[in-house]
């Protein structure tokens, strides 16, 4: 199902021409309306006229999250406050939050993007959709909310928290689709099982999940628990919110709304633009934003782009599920290591908890990686042999996935630090004297 079929299935040539025209527009718009960009573009010697092809984007300086923070709250806005119709902010795990503003046109564009993605995922006007993202400054809930209303679905703006009541609405309203984080969807299933209602009282058929990554194991668990079809969508408040890309029912990558967002993949260390198909950091330029336009925003997410046509008929480029974060990426003995890879191994081993810490050291001229995890299964702990066998198994599995050897240490349960927001699990001691 398509929301705007002619755009979503537009030929690549035509699409790229549209992108080039809009890229020139946004460079010029940034230059004229945001002093930060006037200076940046002057320093780089880039003007809209000099951009002759999409490849020329590589000459434009990149923007980082730090640039948004340094210009808190409205320093990167291109319009006076009276033009804004909404303001959102990101959580701001460290330091100040990042603030974004939307003009009327920005909000229209956002709800179009969202409407396309939810229809691609399989939502229709028949659906009753419960939104279990927290409303408020966070962009997730309202982004989905307006997109779903736009396609005519019945929106239940339930927000997060009070799970039992959310489940009551689900049963009584005949809710057919759920917007949530994957982990909250799993938690809701747990609570539902504890209540005295049969699972046949719930009618969920579709999950629109986002705001955090979802491993294949987790997706499978959610689908089994609810009997629904789970889809992922992707975005971030700096760029707009959710609606940047999302899975169609083929679930073979997340389609960008490429007429509005121009993606590139770069080498996170050198900044060099990589060829299509190569894995690296995702950099995105929103092409039509008025409130807070950005040039080449570094998402820090590691993924790959796939320009092959999709079976669903959409021509817009797809990205793989995010493999990790470039700011979490560790380079150990020349090998890129992502905490997410380590996590994916640890969650498959039932004797340990999924909490872990990574310690990188330099011994002589060699980097070493130590993975600390909590021994969960108490039945093992009387026996050195069994504990050492378990260490051996973990070490072997990690080596298979990472391609490097590491040391595995087991610690007592609940001794590693727990994180409420973004976890900080890496201790890099290599540059300490």
């Amino acid at each position, binding site marked *: 199902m398509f929301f705007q079929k002619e755009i979503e299935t537009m030929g690549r040539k035509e699409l790229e021409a549209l992108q080039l025209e809009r890229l020139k527009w946004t460079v010029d718009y940034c230059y004229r309306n945001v002093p930060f960009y006037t200076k940046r573009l002057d320093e780089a010697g880039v003007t809209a006229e000099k951009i002759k092809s999409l490849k020329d984007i590589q000459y434009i300086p990149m923007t980082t999250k730090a640039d948004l923070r340094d210009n808190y709250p409205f320093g990167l806005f291109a319009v006076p406050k009276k033009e804004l119709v909404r303001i959102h902010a990101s959580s701001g795990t460290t330091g100040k939050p990042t603030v974004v503003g939307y003009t009327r046109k920005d909000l229209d564009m956002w709800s179009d993007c969202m409407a396309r993605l939810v229809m691609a995922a399989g939502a229709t006007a028949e659906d009753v959709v419960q939104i279990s993202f927290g409303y408020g400054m966070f962009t997730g809930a309202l982004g989905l909310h307006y997109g779903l209303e736009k396609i005519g679905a019945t929106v239940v703006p339930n927000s997060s928290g009070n799970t039992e009541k959310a489940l009551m609405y689900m049963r009584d309203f005949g809710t057919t689709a759920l917007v949530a984080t994957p982990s909250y969807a799993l938690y809701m299933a747990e609570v539902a099982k504890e209540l005295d209602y049969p699972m046949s009282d719930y009618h969920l058929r579709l999950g629109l999940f986002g705001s955090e990554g979802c491993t294949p194991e987790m997706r499978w668990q959610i689908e089994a628990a609810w009997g629904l079809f789970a889809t992922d969508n992707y975005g971030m408040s700096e760029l707009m919110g959710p609606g940047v890309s999302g899975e169609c029912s083929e679930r073979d990558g997340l389609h960008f709304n490429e007429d509005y967002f121009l993606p590139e993949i770069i080498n996170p260390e050198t900044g060099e633009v990589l060829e299509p198909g190569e894995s690296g950091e995702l950099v995105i330029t929103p092409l039509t934003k008025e409130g807070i336009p950005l040039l080449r925003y570094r998402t820090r997410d590691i993924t790959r782009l796939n320009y092959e046509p999709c079976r669903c008929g959409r021509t817009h480029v797809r990205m793989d599920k995010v493999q990790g974060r470039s700011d979490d990426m560790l380079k150990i003995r020349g090998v890129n290591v992502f905490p997410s890879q380590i996590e994916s191994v640890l969650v498959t081993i039932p004797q340990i908890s999924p909490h872990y810490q990574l310690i990188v050291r330099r011994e002589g001229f060699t980097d070493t990686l130590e993975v600390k995890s909590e021994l969960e299964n108490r039945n093992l702990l009387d026996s050195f042999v069994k504990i050492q066998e378990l260490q051996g198994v973990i070490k072997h599995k990690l080596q298979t996935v990472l391609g490097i050897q590491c040391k595995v240490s*087991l610690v007592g349960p609940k001794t590693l630090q727990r994180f409420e927001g973004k976890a900080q699990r890496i201790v890099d001691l290599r540059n300490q004297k």
Partner: protein
Amino acid sequence: MAVKQISVFVENQVGKLAEIADYLNEAGVNIRAFAISDTTDFGILRMIVNDPEKAEEVLLENHISVSIIDVMVVSIPDEQGNFAKIMRALADAGQNIEYAYAFLTPEAGFATVIVRVDDPQKGTDALKTAGIRVLEQGEII
């Protein structure tokens, strides 16, 4: 028949054993015998205490990993050749010894040996057949 032993996972960290001992003391648990073995990363503290359930409870409350396991507590006159007698009886019964620790009670002239074997029931039967005394849980408290 078998006696319950408390096994505790101890990270190699200064003060960790003192912390565990304090928890047990505060809970009124009396340690009757213990042994510590270690690798470079962690150690295992094995103890016979007067109240194993209480010890388990207080340590778990404090996020210390504990398991309770059956061991044999063998009491034998403190005389040359008696250790060999125990080992021989267990070997003849096909019992593999995972670990053992011992302590003396000089006044009474007895040695107490704590032994972990694959099958404590079989081990106990073998020792009893050989005329060796194996203590019950009630006898050590």
